């Protein structure tokens, strides 16, 4: 079966944009991605849109109302923090299946401030029966890593130092400011061991990608800047022992990673860079092991070594990650794909990973008692 390619991709700079509408944010990145490919909306045969906040609000159709109502099938996707990547995955499947040659995937979110979580009706058990906040859940995932492997608070905090440093090199990041270790550790405690600077930033944003069949890429002469999709794999939580008490983001990630490496016929040692789901500093270290970037129990050592910083052996979250670039839920999965694609094209400017040939993106989302959803993509320079 022939491969599917990304021929255009872009994102808007993430930020707080309360005066905009969700469809207008999405339309902006959709047009940027089409411009990047040298195409127009009339060339697009189907649209998949990922958004959580207005999941019942027909955002895909409202995008077309802004940029051209050509009558194409338009599908709305919601899948927790994997929403954008799920829209991209559906677009990939439709081209892979031969249904279409040119498909647009868009992810968008307008967030507002405040803590994520909760959302149930009736009297809230928050505080009386633990916490349903995202920071608390991901704090416990870090504490579990401490329990098993002796990981330290400083090692978790170093993730924030690294990703905030990376963001200073990315003009599309929400924050672009260095945060030394003392500042990260001394910031307001949200849920021990995660301080405010170890939590991802709630921002508004959108990202988009144009996917195309191999024959169409060749016939339009777009192979020069095309990015090959070597794997697009998803998973839901396989049974994990404590999953109903504390959401398990590791089991689903390991399943999706195994499928992705197998599909692509590569291993983690072949990767040149990774954008992974650093929704909290604690999460990044856990995912080093889930994605096979190091052996189980070695994540603390890996962040200490500097190997996951720009210039190191396997740079992780060179974009600044969710911690500094920002985390507009529905947009995040496609923004990660934009980041890797930009490096593979050699167009990442000051933060370019030299000679990048193969990259991986990872997002995983879920909530208390809900299970999780994970999407992993492996992308290759043509």
């Amino acid at each position, binding site marked *: 079966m022939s491969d599917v390619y990304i021929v255009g991709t872009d994102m808007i700079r993430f930020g707080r944009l309360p005066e905009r509408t969700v469809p207008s944010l999405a339309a902006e990145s959709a047009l940027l991605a089409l411009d990047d490919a040298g195409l127009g909306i009339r060339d697009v045969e189907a649209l998949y849109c990922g958004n959580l906040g207005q999941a019942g609000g027909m955002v895909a159709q409202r995008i077309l109302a802004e940029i051209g109502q050509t009558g194409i099938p338009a599908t709305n996707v919601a899948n927790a923090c994997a929403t954008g990547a799920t829209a991209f995955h559906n677009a990939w499947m439709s081209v892979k299946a031969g249904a279409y040659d040119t498909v647009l995937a868009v992810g968008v979110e307008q967030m507002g401030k405040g803590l994520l979580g909760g959302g149930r009706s009736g009297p809230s058990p928050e505080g009386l*029966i633990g916490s349903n906040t995202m920071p608390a859940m991901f704090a*416990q995932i870090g504490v579990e890593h401490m329990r098993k492997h002796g990981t330290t608070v400083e090692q978790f905090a170093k993730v924030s130092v690294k990703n905030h440093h990376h963001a200073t090199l990315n003009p599309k990041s929400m924050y672009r400011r260095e945060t030394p270790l003392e500042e990260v550790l001394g910031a307001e405690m949200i849920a021990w061991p995660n301080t405010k600077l170890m939590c991802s930033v709630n921002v508004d944003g959108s990202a988009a990608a144009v996917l195309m069949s191999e024959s169409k890429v060749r016939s339009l002469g777009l192979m020069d800047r095309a990015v090959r999709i070597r794997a697009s794999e998803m998973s839901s939580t396989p049974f994990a022992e404590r999953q109903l*008490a*504390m959401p398990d983001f590791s089991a689903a990630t390991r399943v999706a990673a195994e499928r992705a490496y197998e599909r692509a016929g590569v291993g983690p040692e072949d990767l040149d860079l990774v954008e992974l789901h650093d929704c909290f500093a604690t999460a990044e270290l856990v995912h080093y092991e889930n994605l096979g970037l190091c052996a189980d129990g070695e994540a603390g050592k890996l962040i200490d070594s500097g190997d996951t910083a720009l210039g190191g052996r396997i740079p992780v979250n060179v974009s600044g990650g969710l911690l500094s670039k920002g985390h507009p839920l529905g947009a995040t999965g496609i923004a990660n794909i934009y980041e890797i694609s930009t490096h593979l094209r050699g167009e990442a400017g000051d933060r370019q990973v030299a000679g990048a040939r193969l990259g991986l993106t990872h997002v995983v989302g879920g909530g208390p008692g809900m299970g999780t959803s994970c999407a992993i993509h492996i992308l290759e320079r043509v």
Partner: protein
Amino acid sequence: MSEPLVPIIERDDSGPYLVGTRCRACEHVFVGPREACARCTERESLESLRLADSGRVYVWTVVHRSFPGVATPFIDAIVDLDDGSHLKGTLADIDPDAVTFDLPVRVEFREEIPAGETLPYLTYVFVPSKETGDE
């Protein structure tokens, strides 16, 4: 009498207790009622049971920032109950700095007013077991 804050709390003549489900096929014990086993997918093997009222702290966090109106800080703990089930809850009556992995705790039922409500509800908390005093 106050309403249970969450549906896993039930009552009989002996007082409140937490309801769980055991799968006879794979032996997993779940918190709350269920119709099929998430672990082994069996549908005919489930029996309900009273969950154990003691266990040990697996992991915890100290929550300093929560939703509006919720008093902080508090300790959110994941406890491995003695029957093998895993339960999330607030760990009360202990200094956050004194919490350790595998700290023995027991389940206690209390009347509490949730944030934003005016009437109390019946809920549960974890408290340190008495025998930890002589460590």
